[in-house]
Each structure stands twice: as structure tokens, then as C-alpha cells.
């Protein structure tokens, strides 16, 4: 069953002025449960704007957003409830830390939910562990952490609310390669463990290729497609036209196939490519 649904969702910034832009333009979507979804699109294609509709931070200029079949704007008193069920982590979330200790900061969301002290403690520790935050850091001031640690603390603050849908807007921007890999693995493990739906906004085709099952592609405010990751990466030309590309390893595979190598389609991650190439070499058919 679809957990998030949009119908004709449109959002216009600065309506009625010369600067009017339709950042999201008639988007119809149905996003299922227990899924890892990648959200891609060229800069300014409306990804962040779309994401802010899912937890009711932006009200659609036109159209509807529903969570589990219920229009989230039907009852404004329920909006806060919606925000607990759809967690949103903004880009560079480290700038929203404010409490005296990291523990208290992660506990901010759960506390707002009105959970008991024990439950809060349990969730904070669990979220910190899931993101590999050292327990001894929890007693420190969030401003005394490194950039990467701050980022983890901020994300943990939303994960600790255990939302049904977790949206992460470029969680890996500005992390080192190792930290990036760790972060993506932790996000995937979180998804597996909680069986929630995770929306991962990213500019890295390699990351979404490896970690997501479905891709939501935005193009100048419109929904280009919402399909299985493999299916999306088959649309090489269309992606290029939008200023996107397929993962580098997929381009390599494509080039090899065009030269006559007998490789299967739908290879877009390095491990898949490795397996396929090893098989090909075993067969001894290295004519290309």
C-alpha cells in the first residue's frame, strides 16, 4: 500500500510577482512502504521543495499530499502528528543543533512527541549507535564536535523519532569518502531494521545506484519518472538531456557492450560489474 501519495501537487514560489517560479509542477506519485528511494534531479529541479511537502512544511499551491491515504492538510491540528511520522533532515542539518549536550539535542524530537523518559533514553542511545556516534560524545556540547559528528548528531535527532518515512536531503554532502560510505551503510541498515520508507536526495548516481531500490527523477519541477533503479538507468539519453548521467561503471559497461562484449544489461554498481567481468574472462571471450 502506498504510504505517501500526491495528486497534482504544485508549488509556486513568490506567486503574483515577477519572480514567480513553479518549483513543483503537477506531480502525481505513490510511494510504497518499506523501501529505499533515491531522489535525483538537476540543481533547481524542485527536489527539496517536493520533500518539504511530505511533512507539511510547505502547503501545496494546488493539489493534495496524503499520508497513509489521509490528506495531511485536512486537519491542521494533525500536522504536528504528520511531522512525527515523516521525519525530514535538511541539507547541512548540523546548523540546527542548539542544546547543551548532544544527548539533549537528539532527545529534542522524541521529547516533543511526549514520550516517557525511559523511552527517550532508549531511542537516543539506539539512534546514536545506529549512526556510530560514540557514547562518550553524548555528554559533550554539540558545538564541540567535528563537522561529521555534528551531522550524525543532527540525523540521529530525526531517526530517534522513528518516523514511518525518513527523508534525507543530501546527507553525505561534504563528507570524506570513508564517512560517506559509512553514512550510506548506516542509513541502509536503519531502513532494513525499521522497515520504514527512506527517501534519499542525492547528486551522486553511484550512491543511489548502490543503495536504493527505486528512483524518483525530477526535471524542472516535473516528475520525470518514478521507477525501479535499474529501469531508470536504462534511459541513458533522457537522463543526459536533463543534465544527469548514469553511474560511471554503467557507462563503462555500456561502452563495452557497444564494442561487442557479451555483457548483460542492467549493471550499474561496481560489485555487479566485477562479477560480470570475471565471468566473461572465465569464458575466455575477451575479444573486445
Amino acid at each position, binding site marked *: 500500500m502506498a504510504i505517501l501519495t500526491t495528486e497534482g501537487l504544485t508549488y509556486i514560489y*513568490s506567486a503574483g510577482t515577477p519572480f514567480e517560479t513553479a518549483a513543483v509542477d503537477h506531480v502525481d506519485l505513490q510511494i510504497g512502504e518499506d523501501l529505499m528511494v533515491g531522489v535525483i534531479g538537476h540543481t533547481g529541479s524542485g527536489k527539496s521543495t517536493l520533500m*518539504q511537502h511530505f*511533512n507539511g*512544511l510547505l502547503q501545496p499551491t494546488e493539489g493534495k499530499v496524503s499520508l497513509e491515504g489521509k490528506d495531511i492538510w485536512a486537519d491542521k491540528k494533525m500536522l*504536528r502528528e504528520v*511531522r*512525527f511520522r515523516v*521525519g*525530514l*533532515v*535538511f541539507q547541512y*542539518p548540523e*546548523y*540546527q*543543533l*542548539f542544546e547543551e549536550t548532544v544527548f539533549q539535542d537528539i532527545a*529534542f*524530537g522524541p521529547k*516533543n*512527541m511526549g514520550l516517557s523518559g525511559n523511552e527517550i533514553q532508549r531511542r537516543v542511545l539506539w539512534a546514536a549507535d545506529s549512526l556510530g556516534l560514540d557514547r562518550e560524545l553524548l555528554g559533550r556540547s554539540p*558545538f564541540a564536535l567535528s563537522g561529521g559528528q555534528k551531522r550524525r548528531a543532527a540525523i540521529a*535527532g*530525526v531517526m530517534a*523519532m522513528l518516523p514511518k518515512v525518513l527523508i534525507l536531503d543530501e546527507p553525505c554532502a561534504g563528507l570524506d569518502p570513508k564517512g560517506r560510505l559509512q553514512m550510506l551503510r548506516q542509513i541502509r541498515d536503519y531502513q532494513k531494521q525499521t522497515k520504514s520508507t527512506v527517501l534519499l536526495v542525492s547528486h551522486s548516481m553511484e550512491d543511489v545506484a548502490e543503495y536504493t531500490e527505486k528512483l524518483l527523477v525530477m526535471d524542472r519541477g516535473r516528475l520525470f519518472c518514478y521507477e525501479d533503479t535499474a529501469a531508470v538507468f536504462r534511459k541513458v539519453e533522457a537522463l543526459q538531456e536533463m543534465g544527469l548521467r548514469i553511474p560511471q561503471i554503467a557507462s563503462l559497461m555500456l561502452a563495452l557492450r557497444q564494442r561487442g562484449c557479451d555483457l548483460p544489461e542492467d549493471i550499474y554498481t561496481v560489485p555487479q560489474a566485477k562479477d560480470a567481468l570475471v565471468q566473461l574472462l572465465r569464458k575466455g571471450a575477451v575479444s573486445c
Partner: protein
Amino acid sequence: MLKDITLGQYFPIDSVLHRLDPRFKIIFTMLFIIMLFAGNSVWTLVLSAVFVLMAQFLSKIPLKMSWRSIRPLLPVLVFTAILNLLLIDSGEVVWEWQFLHIYEGGITTSIFMIARIVLLMVGSSLLTYTTSPILLTDAIEALLSPLKRIRFPVHEMAMMMSIALRFIPTLLEETDKIISAQKARGAALDSGGIRERVRALLPILVPLFVSAFRRAEELATAMECRCYRGGEGRTRLRQLKAGVGDHIGLGVCLVFLGASICVNFLKL
């Protein structure tokens, strides 16, 4: 959204008034204010109105923009006008109903007051509509530079003003972002008593201050790296130069001011 507040209200088009020297424009505005308050005759108002209309025409600023500068003041205007009407008791009674009396004096005072304030707002907002904030601070610095003699830190004040102006939109945008982020974590910003409300502001104010200080520090470092050390011996990229137009403008202003003072002496 917070960003919709118009602060620096510069209206970037090209017109005669936009091209004038900002120092002169400040002087014109001051002369205009003196002219407006120089006397109590109707002719003062007429002269000032003609002056404002002329400037408005030369500036090519749409009338809608000028209306925007008056609109926020409307409630105050109406309120004081009503008070004036009811409380001033000079001249003949024009209208009465039970305990309310309206006198001639009240009517003229109200009209004068409204006309003055409207002219003042429209006229002085033309200065900010036609001059970019940066030019404006440059001009203020130039005009205040004689104060350097008495060790008043004119350059530093002007630099602080330009920096503040530059960062207002940035900080507003940042505030918007922080508010959204905390709302996403369930922060309740608009419920509860005073104590809760003040407490609810902390998640917004703390990150905002932290980021403002961080920006200030970064900017200070960047300035020091470029060897900034105050106004001493500093030359400018944009030189303020007075042209023919500015002197003509000054002449026109003085004529209007003179006329305004004359009509008062002649008691027309």
C-alpha cells in the same frame, strides 16, 4: 515567509534620479524636509507636492511602490487625524452630535498633518528607492567625513552599516531554514503560555546566533587576509563625482526652498 519583508527597498531601474550623486540626493532630501516644515501656509504644501511629483516623475518609480511606503502608516494617520478632529477647538463649529464637536481648526490641522506626512514618506522613500544601500552608506560616510576631525569613527560606522545591510537577507533566509528544521522535529512555536513560548524560541535563536557569530568571524578573517585595516589611506572603487545634473538639482531645490520660505513671509 520572512523573506517577503522588504528591507533594503532599492528599486533597480535606470532614471535621472538613479544616476544623481547619492550625496546630493541626501542633501536634496534634507532640503525638502526643511521646505515641508518651513511654514504653515497652503502654498508650502502645494510647492512641496509639486516638488515630490516632479521627483517621482523623474525617478520612474511606479506609483504603486510609493503607495507601499505609505500603507503601513495608514492606521496611525487615521488615528491621529481623528484625535485632531475631535480635540482641537479653535475656529467655528462645523458639525456637532451629542458631546462630539468638530471645529474648523481641527479640520485644517488634520488635513495639514496628513498631507505633510504623506509627502514626507513619499519624498524620502524616493531616496531609498533610487539609491542602492551601498551607495547610500558611501554617501553618508562622505557627508560625515568632517567629523573625522573630532575623531569620530566615520569610516568604521559606514563599514558596519554596509555589512549589516549585506547580511540582512542572508540571516533572514537562515532563520527561515532553522525554523523549518526545528518544526520538522516537532517544535511547537505557537502554543502555550509566555514561558513556554520563550523557551520554544531557544531552538531557533541559539543556532541563529551561532551561525551569525561564525559568519562574522569568517568575514573578519577574510578581511584581514586581504589586509583590511580601516579607512586610513584607503581609496575607493566607486568614486562619488558630482555632475552638472547634481548642481542643477541643487539649484532647483534651493529655488523651491526659497519660494516656500517667501510665501510664509508674505503670509499668502
